[in-house]
């Protein structure tokens, strides 16, 4: 009984922490971008502008929740909920520290891949249901982009699976006791980072939104809390990809001296900052460049990495 109670408590703690982190990241991103671009960023509301998040949330909550008359109403309402649900469900298999995990699946990594492949529906359906031409262009772009980048996202992780011999994220961490997988899987790490950026629609791969050409693309027509869901969903996506990079390539919660949860948080935080730095420093590619980069560079690299890893394991074992 007490066991299931702790389980429920852990689930709720994870849920609330994630939502709070998703909110705080908005502030963090604006401050860090400002720092790198030699500006101040939000610094008026509260200490260091921390309460800016609260102010933004109040603004989003009280905005008019408008559904355009030319939109397909049920799909329009459903689309923003999909991305948040799917991302939060992926977190269920992430091991934050020994014992702090919502559910222990022996195919956790596959579960993550399945959930992340469903996230694209949110963007595509939002673009389609809005019924405006910018939105539908954004939706079209995102469906092609995510299909292409998912293909090698799965492949880039298989090297890790081969080294650990399991899809279970706990066992993957345990297998890194005598050394992080980044030592053998640098190519896999780079590919996963690229694919993860594309999956979360972050700059430089934010072609589905592309403010300067598509006027925010798939969420042009969204306002109020529905827009807020897309916003939070994006930050949750960054957190998810960062924590998976930590788990798969950088030993998860393993580390000396400090408690496991602190190690996990530190490593994840580092990669979140890396994502923000990427946004601050890289320009957006053209659409055809994006597609040919995915299919002609990344996919062959992922397959080659897989082949090499297999050969190496065979040679050793």
């Amino acid at each position: 009984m007490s066991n299931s109670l702790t389980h429920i408590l852990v689930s709720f703690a994870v849920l609330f922490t994630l939502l709070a982190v998703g909110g705080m990241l908005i502030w963090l991103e604006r401050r860090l971008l400002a720092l790198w671009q030699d500006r101040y960023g939000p610094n008026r509301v509260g200490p260091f502008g921390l309460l800016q998040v609260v102010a933004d949330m109040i603004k989003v909550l009280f905005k008019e929740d408008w559904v355009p008359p030319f939109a397909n109403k049920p799909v329009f309402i459903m689309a923003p909920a999909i991305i948040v649900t799917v991302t939060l469900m992926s977190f269920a298999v992430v091991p934050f520290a020994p014992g702090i995990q919502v559910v222990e699946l022996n195919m956790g990594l596959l579960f993550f891949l399945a959930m992340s492949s469903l996230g694209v529906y949110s963007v595509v359906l939002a673009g389609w249901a809005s019924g405006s031409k910018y939105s539908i262009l954004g939706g079209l772009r995102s469906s092609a982009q995510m299909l292409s980048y998912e293909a090698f996202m799965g492949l880039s992780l298989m090297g890790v699976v081969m080294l650990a011999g399991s899809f279970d994220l706990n066992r993957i961490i345990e297998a890194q006791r005598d050394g992080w997988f980044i030592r053998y899987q640098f190519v896999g790490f780079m590919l996963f980072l690229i694919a993860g950026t594309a999956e979360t629609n972050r700059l430089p791969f934010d072609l589905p939104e592309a403010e300067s050409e598509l006027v925010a693309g798939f969420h042009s027509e969204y306002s109020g809390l529905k827009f807020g869901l897309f916003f939070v969903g994006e930050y949750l996506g960054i957190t998810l990809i960062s924590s998976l990079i930590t788990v798969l390539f950088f030993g998860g919660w393993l580390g000396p001296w400090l408690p496991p949860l602190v190690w996990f948080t530190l490593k994840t935080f580092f990669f979140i900052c890396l994502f923000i730095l990427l946004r601050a420093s890289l320009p957006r590619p053209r659409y055809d460049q994006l597609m040919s980069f995915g299919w002609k560079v990344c996919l062959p690299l992922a397959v080659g990495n897989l082949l090499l890893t297999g050969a190496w394991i065979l040679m050793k074992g």
Partner: protein
Amino acid sequence: MINQIVFLYFAAVIVLSAVLTITRRNPVHSVLFMLLLFFHIAGVFVLLNAEFLAAVQLIVYAGAILILYLFVVMLLNVDRESKSDRANRFWPWIVAFGLVIFAEIGLLVARGSFPLEGGQIMNKTGIKELGIDLYTKYLVPFEIASVILLVGLVGAVMLAKKKND
């Protein structure tokens, strides 16, 4: 008992969303009901201890094939509510024909005896066994499947390419 209730739920949603898939006027709505259907089929696979296939069902069917359908529907812009008929003029006959087929299979199932009624849980459910079988016993079909995928890839690119020269 609880398993049976879960199965009945899955079956009801599968049949219902299948009917909705083939009756909607707007292809995008059909795709959405198809998505619901794939989810519940994955659930049936989990009931049958085939967790790997459930994941593959979601990754490949829901995450790739169905997105491809959605992409083409959006690309061709055929989702406008058109006033022309959904079905051809034979449809009442064909529905009756379908009911007859289903009744016949139902009769066969009711009459025939399934010796495996007891239903044993399969011991080896692991991905490992699946992989070992795939790469030893079924190596040749596996390689042929990869060739089929390559043919599909090249064929699709060649067909859809605009002829510039």
